[in-house]
């Protein structure tokens, strides 16, 4: 499952910026590290992060499901089809350099996916919007992130309805690629044109709610921040800078 899971863990109670800073730190750190051992240390850090959030089991399971196809392709592209020299592992000969590269790339992806799944599971979207409003983030940005998520299910439902309606009118979804391409118009056009026709109505509704004012909005229940959390966020930034400095220093050497 991907999405917020209510809870009382330290990550649930933390300011949403702290939770997101840690996940972003994992993302940036993943690309700074280039050796298998380093990357797998980062995967371990991501697992600790998930454990602190009390979502290790659910996040690790989803991360594994999402990463497995990538791992399989990495093994084929780099392990089986990688460069020489090769080593025999059971009945197959795998590229040693390719396997090392696959371990780095797969570890990176696993750390990133696990980190962000944990952030999504522990940072409430409502608290994030409140935190953004409290920091004076313009209405437009919070609107785009929060409101689009509410529009998507409606659009998906409409797409399904159009699909059924056009099939009832005799539209065939199968056939040759050209026939399927021709069916794209009758399905996509009503969806897009219908949404465009509603734009003015939605602008009026937002205007009526004072969204065009441009003034700073007062959040009802902003999440509390603390000096310790601010230090933690700056420490994540310092660690990322240190990791990249080390990477480029090593590349020069």
């Amino acid at each position, binding site marked *: 499952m991907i999405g917020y899971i209510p809870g009382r863990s330290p990550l649930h109670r933390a300011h949403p910026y702290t939770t997101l800073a840690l996940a972003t730190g994992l993302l940036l750190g993943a690309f700074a590290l280039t050796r298998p051992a380093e990357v797998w240390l980062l995967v371990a850090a991501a697992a600790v992060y998930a454990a602190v959030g009390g979502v290790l089991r659910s996040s690790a399971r989803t991360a594994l499901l999402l990463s497995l196809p990538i791992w399989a392709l990495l093994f084929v592209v780099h392990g089986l089809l990688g460069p020489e020299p090769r080593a025999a592992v059971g009945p197959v000969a795998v590229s040693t350099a390719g396997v090392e590269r696959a371990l780095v790339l797969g570890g990176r992806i696993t750390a990133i996916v696990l980190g962000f799944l944990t952030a999504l599971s522990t940072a409430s979207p409502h608290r994030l919007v409140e935190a953004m409003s409290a920091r004076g983030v313009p209405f437009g940005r919070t609107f785009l992130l929060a409101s689009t998520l509410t529009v998507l299910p409606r659009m998906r439902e409409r797409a399904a309805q159009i699909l059924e309606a056009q099939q009832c009118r005799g539209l065939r979804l199968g056939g040759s690629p050209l026939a399927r*391409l021709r*069916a794209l118009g009758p399905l996509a056009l009503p969806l897009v*044109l219908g949404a465009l026709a509603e734009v003015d109505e939605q602008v009026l509704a937002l205007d009526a709610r004072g969204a065009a004012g441009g003034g700073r909005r007062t959040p009802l229940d902003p999440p509390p921040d603390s000096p310790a959390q601010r230090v933690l966020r700056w420490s994540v930034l310092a660690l990322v800078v240190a990791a990249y400095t080390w990477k480029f220093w090593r590349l020069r050497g």
Partner: protein
Amino acid sequence: MTVRPLSLRDLVLIRLGVAVNLVIGQIVAALLLPVYLDSVGTILVAALVGPRAAIAAGLVSQVLAAVLSGNFTWLPFGLVQIVIALYAAGAARLGLFRRIATAVPAGVGMGFVAASCSAPISYFVFGGVTAGGVTVVTTVLRALGAPLSVAVASASYSTDLLDKAIACALVSVVLRSLPRTLAARFPALAR
């Protein structure tokens, strides 16, 4: 030069563009077409409003696609959405979406530019493996003996040229199908 802040209308159109980017995949999947069409909304917003709103639509789409699917490897490809938005705005200014005959070549050009951005990201950042349909093409080409860089580039160019040509043709059809009263509300269309 002062930059005009995004209006409420722009924000609603950006939201529409993001929703189209994310939902059109549902239709593509039902038709079993070998394309993504995940930038139709970005191109549409570029043609209706301009590059700034299109860049916002593209970036928000990329972030939400990653969040909703859990596949956060898509995040670095946000750069491709920026390039698509800028190219689409330029093509719209030149009036290339007015006819399908000009929209398709514009889409092929867009596919070339998009692949030129996505192939290096795929190769250098993810070693050519991003778990999309494009990776299957990469794997097949690699198995046929092509070097990894050639396999990644070939897979990216072949999928992006087709994908963006269809996306631009679809946007052209949408713009031509707009009722006159609706089209009059988008001054960018008149240029």
